[in-house]
């Protein structure tokens, strides 16, 4: 009897399928619930607080649910915090400026990163490995310290001003630290590897015979680049650009250390609204608004990412 059951393939198959299904759901469930608890639910809480009223209390915001006089549960939702974002033009200016800074920095990264990625692909195998390590290395070393290194270069008494004065090009130090220029420089410097690596991965897979065919047919290098190379590397351009643009929009450290008081960026506004003004509801509304602004590029990135790993 027993051996009958064991020998029956349908039973075994069913059993193994059941086991497999259970075992799989455990593997999925652990990271799934972790992310649910520490990634998704926190956003719900931020959204909830963004609808509350700011109070001088602990915690410094009102509860959405209150018990009315007759014991009825009342829900109080305020959209004032969002209206406030539109009333005070500080927020809108900060948003627009962040998008502008992130966009220009992304374009600059692309202009510098594309030829670099191309050059790495075309180098011989040994050199290519060394170059790749050189691009990845700054990514592993401290981001904060690399931003700090520019403070020493751009300061009024810094390396660059000393050099320019020493060469006799200028008489007085130019103010470079704590300017918008320094913020652009810092973002391009910090995010350049993020642009180069996806571009490299894309250019490496190019079908070079197409380029040779174009050249054989008499196309000039620039024409070949514009009609063959560029269209084929659009996925890499999009991935690299999003990897730079999205985090740069919400950047806090670079505008704070290199831009000083002269840079108005939304990440900085959010940070000071929360930590200096202790206005949690407004800070939450700023965070939700920033999230809404970035949700489209993020979905685009996610689509690219899942395509990349499935291909």
């Amino acid at each position, binding site marked *: 009897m027993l051996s009958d059951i064991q020998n029956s393939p349908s039973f075994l198959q069913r059993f193994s399928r059941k086991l497999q299904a259970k075992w799989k759901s455990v593997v*999925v469930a652990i990271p799934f619930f972790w992310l649910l608890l520490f990634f*998704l639910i926190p956003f719900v809480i931020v959204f909830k607080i963004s609808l509350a009223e700011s109070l001088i209390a602990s915690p410094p915001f009102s509860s959405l649910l209150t018990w009315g006089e007759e014991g009825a549960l009342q829900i109080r939702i305020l959209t004032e915090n969002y209206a406030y974002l539109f009333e005070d033009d500080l927020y809108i200016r900060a948003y627009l400026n962040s998008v502008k800074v992130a966009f220009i920095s992304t374009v600059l990264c692309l202009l510098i990163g594309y030829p670099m990625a191309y050059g790495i692909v075309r*180098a011989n195998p040994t050199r290519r490995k060394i170059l790749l390590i050189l691009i990845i290395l700054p990514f592993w070393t401290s981001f*904060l310290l690399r931003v700090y290194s520019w403070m020493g270069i751009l300061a009024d008494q810094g390396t660059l001003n000393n050099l320019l004065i020493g060469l006799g090009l200028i008489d007085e130090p130019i103010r470079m630290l704590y300017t918008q220029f320094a913020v652009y420089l810092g973002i391009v410097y910090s995010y350049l590897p993020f642009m180069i690596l996806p571009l490299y991965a894309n250019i490496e897979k190019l079908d070079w015979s197409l380029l040779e065919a174009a050249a054989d047919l008499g196309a000039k290098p620039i024409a070949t680049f514009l009609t063959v190379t560029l269209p084929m590397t659009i996925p890499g351009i999009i991935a690299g650009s999003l990897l730079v643009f999205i985090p740069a929009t919400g950047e806090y450290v670079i505008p704070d250390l290199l831009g000083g008081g002269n840079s108005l960026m939304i990440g900085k506004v959010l940070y000071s609204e929360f930590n200096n003004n202790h206005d949690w509801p407004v800070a*939450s509304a700023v965070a939700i608004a920033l999230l809404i602004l970035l949700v489209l590029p993020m979905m685009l990135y996610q689509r690219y990412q899942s395509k990349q790993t499935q291909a």
Partner: protein
Amino acid sequence: MNHKSSKYIISMLCFGLAFLYIPIFLLIFYSFNHSKIVPLWGGFSTRWYTKLFESPEVWEAVMLSLKIALVNATFATLLGTLAGLAMVRFGRFKGRTLFSGMISAPLVMPEVITGISLLLMFITLSDFIGWPSERGFTTITIAHITFSMAYVAVIIQSRLTGMNESIEDAARDLGAKPFRVLMDITLPLLAPGMLAGWLLAFTLSLDDLVIASFVTGPGSNTLPILIYSRIKLGLRPDINALATIIIMTVSLGVMLAAWIMWRQEKQQMKDRQMIQADEIKMNNH
């Protein structure tokens, strides 16, 4: 494929690399400056290094950061590997779209948003269930695991898609249960990817300032928080010394890892050539 690049490409490559490395070299150079004013050369000296090691604050921050980084890297590798396996090997399952969104979003999410949302989450939790009663090591570690596991998952996903499935298929055909296939075949093949993920999670944790400064509590200063509080007010030669030590350690680690991988590759190439040579010999006999 030819290996010639135009002068334009080569000069852009040189310019880009100079742009990436000159600031780092200057940072290291000025750490050996005797003068207190960073960009003013006052002769060679190692006094900032001695000063650095005399400060108990720095040691405390280093130890806290290392502790967080170790725990974070281990848990992030475990969770990230599970997530990567689920994404690549499990086909469709309920909630896959949400799952893949939650896995890739932390990679690009601005740090201020992650930081503020986790802090508000911890505060709400401690109001309701009394945990976490204080913020510091635990809260920072949880925050770091959450974004590090996304990076690990990406590495594991790319390894799994690049991996030959035929060995797993063979084991399955020979009657190995799925769990055994995972333990005996898939995970050993994934080990290099998991190591890479562990190292990346470790350095990401050591590097994080914004998220940690949101979710930390009084008295728990990680190394980036300490560095930040010092450089906020201007240039500090002792921070240059600290930076030099960090950059040197990381660079040596990365170069060592690269060298080991390189040697392995070379060995594999050699093995393959030897096998081919043997085959030719056998055919000739």
